[in-house]
C-alpha cells in the first residue's frame, strides 16, 4: 500500500512555482529512493545491513537521524528510529519530506499551499485571502464522518490512528501495539516534529493528553478506543462536525 502526496497551491502558477512543483515531486521520489525500507538498494537498507551510505545522500541521512534523536529525546523514548530493533526512521521521514516540499514551493513564491502526505499536512499561508485553511479530522470509528475540523494558517496537522490499518503503532517500551487511543491528531508549526510527536504520543495512550498539554507549540485532539474525545485547551478551531 502506498500513499498519496498532493499539492494544493492557491497562488498564481508562475514559472518559478511550476519549476518548484516539479522539484518538489522529484524530491519526494528522491526521498523514497534514499529512505525506503522496502528497497534493498536504498541508503537506509544499506545502513541497516552495516554497509556504508552513498556519499551523495550522507548529509540527508545524517540530518534525518539527528532529527530522530532529537524527537526521541523530546518524547522520552516514545519515538524511536529503530522500532523492533530494525533501522527504520520512516516515522519521521514522511513529515520531513512533506515539510521540505512545502518549503521548496514557498521559496519559489507559492506562499499559500497545502502539501498533504497521506493525511499528514503542512499548510502555509491561507486557503484564500482572509480565509484560513480548514482541515477535517477523520473519525476513526465512523468511516464517512469527521470528528472535528481544524482551522488555521501556517499549520502542520498530523494524525496517528488505528482506523486505517488497525493497530500498527507499537509501544516501544513493551513492543505491543498501542490500543488506548483510536486516533490522535497533533497540530504544530513543523510537520517533521508534529508528525513524529503524533506517533510517539499515540503510543503513550492514556498518558498522551497530559504530555501534549505540556508540549510547547503543539495542540492535540485525541479519540480514545472507548470513543471519548478530548482536546488540549488551545486546539485550533475545533469546530465539531459530529453527526
Amino acid at each position, binding site marked *: 500500500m*502506498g*500513499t*498519496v*502526496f*498532493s499539492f*494544493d*497551491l*492557491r497562488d*498564481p*502558477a508562475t514559472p518559478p512555482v511550476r519549476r518548484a*512543483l516539479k522539484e518538489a*515531486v*522529484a524530491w*519526494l*521520489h528522491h526521498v*523514497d*529512493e534514499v529512505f*525506503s*525500507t*522496502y528497497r534493498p538498494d536504498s541508503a537506509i537498507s544499506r545502513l541497516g545491513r552495516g554497509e556504508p551510505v552513498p556519499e551523495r545522500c550522507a548529509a540527508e541521512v545524517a540530518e534525518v537521524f539527528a532529527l530522530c534523536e532529537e524527537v526521541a529525546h523530546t518524547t522520552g523514548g516514545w519515538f524511536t528510529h529503530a*522500532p523492533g530493533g530494525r533501522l*527504520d526512521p*520512516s516515522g519521521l*521521514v*514522511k513529515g520531513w*519530506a512533506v515539510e521540505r516540499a512545502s518549503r521548496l514551493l514557498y521559496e519559489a513564491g507559492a506562499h499559500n499551499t*497545502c502539501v498533504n*502526505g*497521506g*493525511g*499528514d*499536512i503542512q499548510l502555509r499561508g491561507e486557503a*484564500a*485571502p482572509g*480565509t484560513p*485553511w*480548514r*482541515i*477535517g*479530522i*477523520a*473519525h*476513526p470509528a465512523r*468511516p*464517512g464522518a*469527521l470528528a472535528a*475540523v481544524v482551522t488555521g494558517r501556517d499549520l502542520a*496537522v498530523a*494524525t*496517528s*490512528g488505528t*482506523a*486505517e490499518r488497525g493497530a*500498527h*503503532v507499537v509501544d516501544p517500551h513493551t513492543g505491543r501495539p498501542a490500543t488506548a487511543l483510536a*486516533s490522535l*491528531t497533533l497540530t504544530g508549526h513543523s510537520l517533521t516534529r508534529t508528525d513524529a510527536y503524533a*506517533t510517539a504520543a499515540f503510543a503513550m495512550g492514556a498518558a498522551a493528553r497530559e504530555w501534549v498539554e505540556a508540549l510547547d507549540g503543539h495542540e492535540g485532539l485525541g479519540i480514545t478506543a472507548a470513543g471519548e474525545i478530548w482536546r488540549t485547551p488551545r486546539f485550533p478551531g475545533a469546530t465539531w*462536525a459530529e*453527526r
Partner: protein
Amino acid sequence: MRKATVTTVSTVAGVILLLSLKPHQNPAPDMTAAPPPSGTPEAPASPAPTGQKPSSAPTGQKRSNAPTGQKPSNVGASGTYTGSVINTSYGPVQVSVTLSNGRITAVKALRTPFDRPRSQQIAADAVPRLTQEALSAQSAHIDAVSGATYTSEGYTRSLQSALDKAGV
C-alpha cells in the same frame, strides 16, 4: 513505530502524485479558467508506475477498461478515463477522470463505499478534496482531511489507473 508511515514512504514512487494548481478562491470543479500547462502536464512527474513500484503496490488491477478519451498528444491528454475498481476494506471505489491538455478538470466517483448522491460529483483538485467529499458530505467546506487514508488509497489507485490509461 508507525507501520503506515513505513509503507507510505516505501511507495512514494509507485503512487500517484497529483498536483493541482488552483487559482484563488475558485473552489468550483471547473479548472478551465486556470492557465494552461506549459508543455508538459503538471501531474505525475513519474507516472506509469507499473514496473518500478514495490510489490505491495496495486499493479495487478489496471487497465481493465478501455479509455473513452483520445490518446495523449504532446500537450497532454484530453478526455474522460475510467479507473479500475479498487476494493478497499470499506468497499469498492472507482473513479473517472477528465483531462484537458493533461490537466485534471474533473474527477468523478463512480463507486464509493459511502454512496451518497452528494459524494458523487467531486471537485477538480483531486485527492484531498476527493477524500473530503466522501468523508464530510454534510459538513462545510474542507480543504483536506487528516487521518484515515483508506478511502484516498482506493481513490488514488483507481485514479492512477485512469491516468495510466490517459498516458499522463
